[in-house]
Each structure stands twice: as structure tokens, then as C-alpha cells.
């Protein structure tokens, strides 16, 4: 057992003695690589040691040691635990670390995010622009010394609330219109969108005027969104078209940005749980799971058996309803207007009724706690779940299958569209059903099991064509497997408590770092949490599947028709609460 563990984690410090040292801060793990050597070693990691999947890139600000850190979590697509490597840079502007975009193109948006929020430049990144904040915004909000407009204190609970809490509206302190700082020389009154838009448009493939038979052809630039019904929220894609064909595409996001991570640092550990519900609001049961997993690791807290089973039950129900929504909305985009969507909503509705009865809310469940769940499933709800899982769902999934899987119009819109090769899938850090539709059997429930998933018998659904139809079929299979897991979980669920220890609102978490990741319905959902031993997380970074999966949209779209963009984006399955955070 021990020997496998040793071979599993690569000892980088031994391999590269002069440029790598093990991270020996208490509670920390991984390796610190000198930034000059980062690129070469990263290349070796991919080519020599098989770490072909770079999952998460996080920035951390350490003003006490006058340094900034970039943390990478790399995995092997064959499974196993993470290789954590970091690089440090002195906290003096301009900060620069080498970009790894040519090794793992999937870091594209994540590196842009770190530049935007921390102000660390990535040398060699071809398109390093702000991504979540807007051009003209002053400062980098995730730095520890940056203060928001309604700033009161470093950390909650705020002292103004008790014992002298005379209510004041926040805008009395910082009035609307007066609560934003701009860069020097930036005047919002005189601002026109040309300058930053120029930077955006120049990132696209250049306009070309072709001269065929004396006819001049110009490419057409189209903005899909931010108010476009097919983008399912405020997502914008700028596309350049040659006729109907997409030549180049750039995603633009941040319209729903609220700096969730900064809020998370101000909050106490416990207060973050209801906030995670607001990330992927279709799957609040799963979002909170990833976070509790990370914090439980730091706390060294065991979860009671029954609670683990309850988490699985609600997690898998959440997966089923997430895929149903996706189908409904996708068919909506394809022109089967609202009939399939409402059929899909029926099953979802019944599940949400159960969520509501057990957790108290249909979508913002706030059900997980550190060391378990907040309350047990009541017998009536248990009965409902059983009826749903054993009787209704199998029947209804079959009906769904019959409704559209073979529909010729549907198939012709999906087959062969949006191809992404398995190599590209890994390189672009794609996760979730999209990865498995490319024939890569990577599922965190199997690759790095969490909870009690290792006790259930289920298959990882696989398809090999990596087109939209396969992504659809993989999800249908996944629903069937979820039902299978649910049936086993309902059969085996033991009696007992659902929470370890006494519920407490003040939780001190030992210093250290951790990365908790779960296979959320949309893909890999990871929480990188750093604690400094106080009641609030020092760093709270979320690697959301929607955000990282968007990186590959351009690759999938180029060469297809503009109408296919709608389907491709629909199949990537993004939710803007998670993309923009």
C-alpha cells in the first residue's frame, strides 16, 4: 500500500535539485519551482511523467512575505492524486511568471483571470486582457490590500451589527455613482467602448479581404450576446464569420461577476456554504459538497456513514436534474420550442419538491455542513425518493430517449458537429461529460474517489466520436448510471447520525492548504482553500467546470456554421453564476 503511494506522487525536489524545493510550510504540500525553470519542468511533467491534465491554476497573495504565488494542480488522465507545484514571485509590480499556455492551452482563461484579479503577468500569453473586470477598472481586486466600495472590516462578523447595531443602508456610506475607482486618466463620461473593444477584436483572427475573381470579400464580425437567448445568461461571444462559417471566436464574460472569492475571504468558513449554492444554482447540492470536502480535509473531520450516503443520494439526484435541464434548454435552442423543456422540468420539479422538503429550499439548498449534513431525510421524503428512483425515473428516462434521441432533425443537427479530439480535450482541461464523450474514461468518482463512491457499482459512460450527439448520449447514459447508484445507495443507507460533533457557527480551521474536487454534473469542481488558522479562509479559490470548459469553445466552433455555435455552447453546459463568479 505504501509503495504505491510513494510512486504515485512524483518527488520533484529530488529530480530537479537545483531549481525545485519541497513546500515545507506547515500544512502545505507540493513543490516550489523557481520561475525561470517553471516552463521547462512543466514541459517535462507533461511529456516525461504523464501529467497531461492541468486542472487548476490559482493565485495567492502573501503580503507578509512580500510574495505572490501561482499554484498549479496537475493530474494524470489515468487517475491518481494531484501533483501540486507552485512558483513564487516578488510582490513588486510588474510581476511576471512564464505562461504555460503552449503546454496546456487550458490555462488560457485561468491565467487571464489571475492577471485580472492579482496583477501577475504571464509572459508569453498571447491575449492577456482583463477577463472578469472591465477595462479601466483600477487595481486587482483579489490582492489583500484592495478594498471594495462597501468595505467595513477585513472579516465577518462585522462589529457594527451587534451590540450597537443601528441599521444603516450601505449606500449611505458609499453612494451609488461614487463607489467606483477608475484608473488615473480614465473618465467614464468620455469613455467610448472603442479602446478595449479594439484589444478584443485584435485578439481575433485578422480581417482578410480576399480577392477572388475580382470580388472583394470581407469577413463579418458578429456579437452573440450578452443579451442573446441561446447563451443562457449574460455571456457574449464575438465571432468572425466567413459567410456562415465561424473563422474565429472569443468568449467575453464577467457580466455577472461579483467577486465571489473576495466575499469568500471576508466570510467565515461556515458562511461560505450558502454562497456556494449561488455558483451553479442548478446543483447547489453538489457545489457545497466540494467545499465541505475541502474544509473537512483541513479539519481532519470524518463524515458519518449516513451523511455520506445522503450526500450521494442528493448529489446524484442533482446530476439527473442538471442533465434534464440541459436537454430541455438544448432542444429549446434547436427549435423544439419549450415542449421538451417542460417535459424535462416535470421530473426536475418532483426532485426539487424533495430538496425543498429536506433542505428547506428548492435551489439554494444550504444543506451541507462540515462533517455531514444539516438534517436527516424525513421518512415521507425518503418514500418519495424511493418511488421516484425505483418507479418513475426509469420509465421517464426511457420516454425521453424515445422523444428525441432518434429524431432525425435533432441527430442531423448534432452528428459530427463540434468535434474536439481527445488530445485537445485533455490539453484544454475539459472535464465532465464532454471529456468522456471523447473516449477518455476520466471521472473523479473513480479517478480519485471521494465520499463513498468507491462502494457503488457503476460504469463510466463512454462515447468515442466526441461530437455533440455523443455528448448528448453520454449524458443520457450518465442519468441511467445515476439511477443505478441511487438504487444502491437507497438499498444500503445505514441508520445513524448525520453530523459529526456539535453544530457550531465559529469554526477554527488549522493552517494549511487543500484542494477538494468533486465530479459535479458539469465537470470537475474544485475548491482550493488556504487557511491561516483563523476563522476566515485566507484564500478561497473555485475552479468551476463551466469557466474552464469555455476555453475550448473556440476550438470546437471554428469551421462550423454560426447556427451550430448555439448548440455547441448549449452542450458545453455553462451556467453563468459559475462562469462569472
Amino acid at each position: 500500500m505504501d509503495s504505491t503511494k510513494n510512486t504515485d506522487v512524483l518527488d520533484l525536489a529530488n529530480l530537479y535539485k537545483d531549481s525545485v524545493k519541497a513546500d515545507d510550510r506547515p500544512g502545505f504540500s507540493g513543490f516550489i519551482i523557481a520561475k525561470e525553470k517553471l516552463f521547462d519542468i512543466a514541459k517535462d511533467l507533461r511529456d516525461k511523467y504523464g501529467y497531461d491534465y492541468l486542472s487548476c491554476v490559482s493565485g495567492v497573495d502573501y503580503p507578509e512575505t512580500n510574495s505572490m504565488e501561482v499554484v498549479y494542480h496537475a493530474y494524470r488522465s489515468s487517475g491518481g492524486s494531484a501533483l501540486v507545484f507552485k512558483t513564487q514571485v516578488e510582490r513588486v509590480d510588474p510581476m511576471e511568471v512564464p505562461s504555460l499556455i503552449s503546454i496546456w492551452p487550458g490555462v488560457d482563461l485561468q491565467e487571464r483571470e489571475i492577471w485580472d484579479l492579482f496583477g501577475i503577468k504571464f509572459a508569453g500569453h498571447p491575449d492577456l486582457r482583463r477577463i472578469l473586470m472591465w477595462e479601466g477598472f483600477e487595481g486587482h481586486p483579489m490582492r489583500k490590500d484592495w478594498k471594495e466600495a462597501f468595505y467595513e472590516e477585513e472579516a465577518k462578523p462585522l462589529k457594527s451589527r451587534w451590540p450597537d447595531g443601528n441599521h444603516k443602508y450601505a449606500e449611505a456610506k458609499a453612494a451609488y455613482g461614487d463607489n467606483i475607482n477608475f484608473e488615473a486618466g480614465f473618465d467614464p463620461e468620455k469613455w467610448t467602448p472603442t479602446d478595449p473593444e479594439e484589444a478584443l477584436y485584435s485578439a481575433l483572427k485578422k480581417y482578410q479581404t480576399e480577392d477572388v475573381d475580382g470580388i472583394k470579400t470581407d469577413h463579418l464580425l458578429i456579437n452573440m450576446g450578452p443579451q442573446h437567448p441561446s447563451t443562457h445568461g449574460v455571456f457574449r461571444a464575438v465571432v468572425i464569420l466567413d459567410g456562415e462559417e465561424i473563422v474565429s471566436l472569443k468568449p467575453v464574460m464577467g457580466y455577472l461577476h461579483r467577486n465571489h472569492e473576495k466575499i469568500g475571504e471576508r466570510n467565515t468558513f461556515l458562511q461560505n456554504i450558502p454562497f456556494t449554492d449561488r455558483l451553479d444554482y442548478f446543483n447547489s447540492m453538489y457545489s457545497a459538497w466540494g467545499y465541505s470536502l475541502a474544509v473537512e480535509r483541513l479539519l481532519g473531520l470524518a463524515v458519518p456513514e449516513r451523511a455520506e450516503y445522503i450526500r450521494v443520494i442528493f448529489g446524484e439526484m442533482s446530476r439527473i436534474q442538471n442533465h434534464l435541464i440541459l436537454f430541455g434548454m438544448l432542444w429549446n435552442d434547436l427549435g423544439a420550442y419549450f415542449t421538451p423543456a417542460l417535459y424535462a422540468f416535470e421530473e426536475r420539479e418532483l426532485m426539487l419538491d424533495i430538496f425543498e422538503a429536506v433542505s428547506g429550499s428548492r435551489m439554494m439548498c444550504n444543506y451541507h455542513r462540515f462533517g455531514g449534513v444539516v438534517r436527516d431525510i424525513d421518512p415521507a421524503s425518503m418514500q418519495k425518493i424511493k418511488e421516484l428512483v425505483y418507479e418513475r425515473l426509469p420509465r421517464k428516462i426511457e420516454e425521453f430517449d424515445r422523444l428525441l434521441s432518434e429524431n432525425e432533425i435533432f441527430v442531423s443537427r448534432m452528428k459530427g458537429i463540434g468535434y474536439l479530439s481527445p488530445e485537445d480535450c485533455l490539453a484544454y482541461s475539459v472535464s465532465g461529460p464532454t471529456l468522456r464523450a471523447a473516449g477518455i474514461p476520466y471521472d473523479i468518482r473513480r479517478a480519485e474517489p471521494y465520499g463513498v463512491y468507491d462502494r457503488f457499482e457503476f460504469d463510466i459512460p463512454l462515447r468515442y466520436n466526441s461530437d455533440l450527439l455523443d455528448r448528448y448520449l453520454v449524458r443520457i447514459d450518465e442519468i441511467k448510471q445515476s439511477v443505478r447508484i441511487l438504487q444502491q445507495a437507497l438499498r444500503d443507507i445505514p441508520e445513524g447520525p448525520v453530523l459529526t460533533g456539535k453544530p457550531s457557527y465559529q469554526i477554527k480551521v488549522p493552517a494549511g492548504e487543500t484542494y477538494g474536487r468533486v465530479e459535479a454534473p458539469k465537470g470537475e469542481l474544485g475548491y482550493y482553500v488556504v487557511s491561516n488558522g483563523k476563522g476566515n479562509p485566507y484564500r478561497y479559490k473555485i475552479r468551476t467546470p463551466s469557466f474552464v470548459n469555455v476555453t475550448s469553445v473556440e476550438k470546437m466552433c471554428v469551421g462550423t456554421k454560426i447556427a451550430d455555435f448555439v448548440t455547441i455552447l448549449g452542450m458545453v453546459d455553462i451556467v453563468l453564476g459559475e462562469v462569472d463568479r
Partner: protein
Amino acid sequence: MYGIGLIKGLSVTLNRFVESYTEDIRWLVKRYAKVDFRSSKDAKGTFTIEYPEQQLNIPEEFRFTPFLVYDEGENGEKNIRCTSCGICAKACPPQCIWIVRTVDPATGRPQPQPAEFYIDADICMNCGFCAEFCPFDAIKMNHDFEQSSYTRNLKNKEILLQPASYYANIRPLNYAKEEAARAEKAAAKAAAKA
């Protein structure tokens, strides 16, 4: 043959179409009882309900904004359970609870009574932490979700107060459990004294 898949799919739609009528006829007389059927595993036909005439049953654990519980005294006085300990204000994730503690004007010592209690219901995220961590069962989550208004929804102590009977009405199981625990505690205390 081309078109088979289409016909297969349309047969599902047709089936549903017919069901929506047969079910409507079946529930014509007892249409308000249909809500229970609609939430069961056998639900079919029209799935939507006619709000506000028909309403889904609200489960006991459902939570909306918080309210304060008071016990009715013998002479009709309101004995507020809250001791203004401030735990709810500290646990609140969006920090929407504001409490002013009562101070005895003579001695300057704090008294276990809130002088003011505000909940900014526009900011409240309905998470239920305040009710979960209150050691005195003094703040509970309401079921009343029809709270739209033309103004900001800042609730003061007077608006927030509800009698314990109201609480027992909306959350009977929780209420019974808490009352039993309290009776047990009181009995243990009495036993310790004796």
C-alpha cells in the same frame, strides 16, 4: 426508414396531449385536490397549477425570511424569547441582522432584551443559519414568501415579532421537538434542585 425517429418522438407528444385532456376531465370536480397528485410519482397530464387559486403544499422545513418568536404571557404581554446575545448577527452570512442591546440606564449593564432588532430582508439570503444556531429558539424561518413591496424591505422588531402559536402552526414537528427538549431540561433542573 427516415422519419421513424420523428414519429416515435411525436407519439410521446401525442400521448401527453391526450393525457392533458383526460386528466383534466378526471380532476374536473376535485381540481384543488389535484395538487397532491401532481406532486406524486404518478403525476401526469397538465403539470402546472393555477397559482394563486391552487398552491403547492409548503413543507415544514421550507424557509423564507426570519421572524422573532414571543411567548404570550397571561395578561397578553409579549415575552420576547430573544436575549440579544448576537449569535444570529454573527452567523449571518450577508450580515443583514442588526441588533441593539438593551442597557439598564441606572447601572449601565446590558439586559437580556433587544432594544432594536432589524433584519434587512432585501439582503437576507434565506439560508436559515440564524434559526439554526439560536440557542433560545427565538428566531425562526417564516413560510410567508409573498413579500413583494414597493419599498425597501427593512423589518424592525414590531414587524418581526410573531407569537409562539404561529410558530407551532407552521412548524408543528419542530415546535413539538423543542418543547419536549425544554420540558426535559426544566425537569432535570428541578431534579437537580430537589
